């Protein structure tokens, strides 16, 4: 049984009659000790779906799902108190901007010890020792003196290490990292990812790595899930997705990698932007930006289907040569 099982998760905002679906029937699962990479552009619903898993979507947002279970327990039907006992203990989360993730009014020590106090109790002395351990574990130099530091006295990389220490304080079985390196400079990025992977490996914790950095997930993730405009577009094992993308969007994303633009004058891009609330196409959400789109793509919305061991939401999944299958020339616009 998977550790986290998400079936047809939908998150809606706005009025009941004209809702905006930030996440649209997304399903995925994470096994123990597995690293799942969720990739997509800004506005693709990656963060919102993980906030829904954490139970952090507030009114007026509406979360529905056929099932949302963690370790066999149904997260949707349990009482708020019981759910809080899981969030922060068994599921930890790291956010994008470490500089704003720490409360400016409290010391590092107080913020880490708070998580321990709520979930594990113990004496103040034990909690302080554990905090010191954690700071060591996340590679903070001179942890003792950092204990009493306030967030404004820390650098971005240091803050992110503290945030990580906070998230892993209670030995979670699942850690959700929502673009943990976006706000950091490049040299620190690699250190933070290495740290996350090391922690994941040491404790056999599952990790969901949300990012728009494909190169990063290619190295780190076991499985990858590509999202676009709130929908799942493609999911499957990381290496095979990189070897042969089945969805035109994945293909375009990979082509946009600088490494793959050798021999070209300019980096390749995907023209246009992710559709928002008011400009959703009637057919496939990618249709306006897809180079293979035809009349059917514009008119109908495809469902997710299995193709070559992958889940792909496309009428014409790509073959090994990167060409659309099943698309007869007659249909092409």
């Amino acid at each position, binding site marked *: 049984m998977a550790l986290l099982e998400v079936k047809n998760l939908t998150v809606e905002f706005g009025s009941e009659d004209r809702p905006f679906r930030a996440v649209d029937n997304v399903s995925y699962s994470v096994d123990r000790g597995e690293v799942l990479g969720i990739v997509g552009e800004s506005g693709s619903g990656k963060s919102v779906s993980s906030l829904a898993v954490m139970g952090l979507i507030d009114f007026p947002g509406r979360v529905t799902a056929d099932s949302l279970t963690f370790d066999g327990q149904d997260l949707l039907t349990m009482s708020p108190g019981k759910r809080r006992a899981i*969030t*922060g203990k068994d599921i930890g989360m790291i956010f994008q901007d470490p500089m704003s993730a720490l*409360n400016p009014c409290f010391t590092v020590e107080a913020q880490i010890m708070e998580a321990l106090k709520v979930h594990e109790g113990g004496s103040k002395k034990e909690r302080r020792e554990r905090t010191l351990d954690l700071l060591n574990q996340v590679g903070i130099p001179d942890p003792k003196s950092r204990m009493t530091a306030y967030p404004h006295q820390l650098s971005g990389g240091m803050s992110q290490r503290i945030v990580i220490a906070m998230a892993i304080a209670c030995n979670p079985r699942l850690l959700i990292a929502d673009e943990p390196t976006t706000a950091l400079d490049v040299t620190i990025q690699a250190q933070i990812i290495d740290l996350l992977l090391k922690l994941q490996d040491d404790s056999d914790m599952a990790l969901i790595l949300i990012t728009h950095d494909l190169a990063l997930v290619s190295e780190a993730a076991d499985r990858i899930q590509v999202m676009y405009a709130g929908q799942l577009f493609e999911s499957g094992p990381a290496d095979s997705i990189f070897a042969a993308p089945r969805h035109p969007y994945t293909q375009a994303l990979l082509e946009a990698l600088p490494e793959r633009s050798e021999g070209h004058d300019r980096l390749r891009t995907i023209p246009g932007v992710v559709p928002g609330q008011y400009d959703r196409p009637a057919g496939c959400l990618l249709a306006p930006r897809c180079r293979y789109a035809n009349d059917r793509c514009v008119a109908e919305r495809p469902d997710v289907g299995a193709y070559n061991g992958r889940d792909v939401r496309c009428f014409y999944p790509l073959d090994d040569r990167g060409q659309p299958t099943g698309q007869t020339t007659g249909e092409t616009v």
Partner: protein
Amino acid sequence: MLGFLLRRLGDVIPTFFGVTILVFLMIHLIPSDPIQMRAGERSIDPERYAELQKEYGFDRPLVVQYFDYLGGVLQGDLGESFVTKRPVIEEFATLFPATIELSIAGILFAVIIGLPLGVIAAINRGKWLDHLTMSLSLTGYSMPIFWWALLLIMFFSTTLGWTPVSGRLSIMYYIEPTTGFMLIDTLISDEKGAFISALRHLILPTIALGTIPMAVIARMTRSSMLEVLGEEYIRVARAKGLAPMRVIMVHALRNALIPVITVIGLQVGVLFAGAILTETIFSWPGIGKWIVEALNRRDYPTIQGGILMIAFVVMGVNLLVDLMYGVINPRIRHKR
């Protein structure tokens, strides 16, 4: 911390001189002077007038009068009242506790009611509770004190008879002033019931005086809370699995309080302005009423001294507020 304190104290000095100049000049802008006022409706014979002018020192140039006054102030001498012939500082000291008592009660009322109202409104943003509390606070803010005080008296004192109409204590009791604070004095005295009486006398003036600051604090708390609740660290706190109450009361409120404290400090000035009206309406024997009477008599030393002392207290409170920032906000404490 000491450097911080000294720097702030340094800011106070120019303000002090500014206040003395302003007060001194403004008083001389008021038409008529103390001698004319004391002469009453009968006109005064010009010779006698000149004589009195000389006696009070009004014949000298204004600049000379000012420096003469300033010299006295710097030595702690605010002069003598023209009317009572008692030192201004002495009168001030006798009356000030009554005003302090009322002001403290007023600000406590404002904070105790205003803060929770603001928090409740913020966490129920857009719902009926938010609209209710915010329209209440807007009403409170828009209500002129004299009108509000009269309404309170009419309803609670005259119609319902729950509270006394005016004064600090029922005439049934006589309390020898020890601290000057009626609540404390009655509590340590042997007179039974005097404390309750003092408390009942305090209720309406407190509400009248505290309503505007209460409304301001409620609105400020609401907007500050809303801003803080949208911060990432609130989400992080919730992701730790903390109970909503803890997130709001510990993580959000602490940060939201920083601007609210500024507002509370600024409200102290408003409070003294309000005290002048409130004391007059409720016959509260404090400095507000005293200054109004002095103004009517053109009792220059009393007006000057009174306003100067109030300015001093307001400056002191603002200094205190600045120091409070350091306690509540580590970013300020550590700045050099």
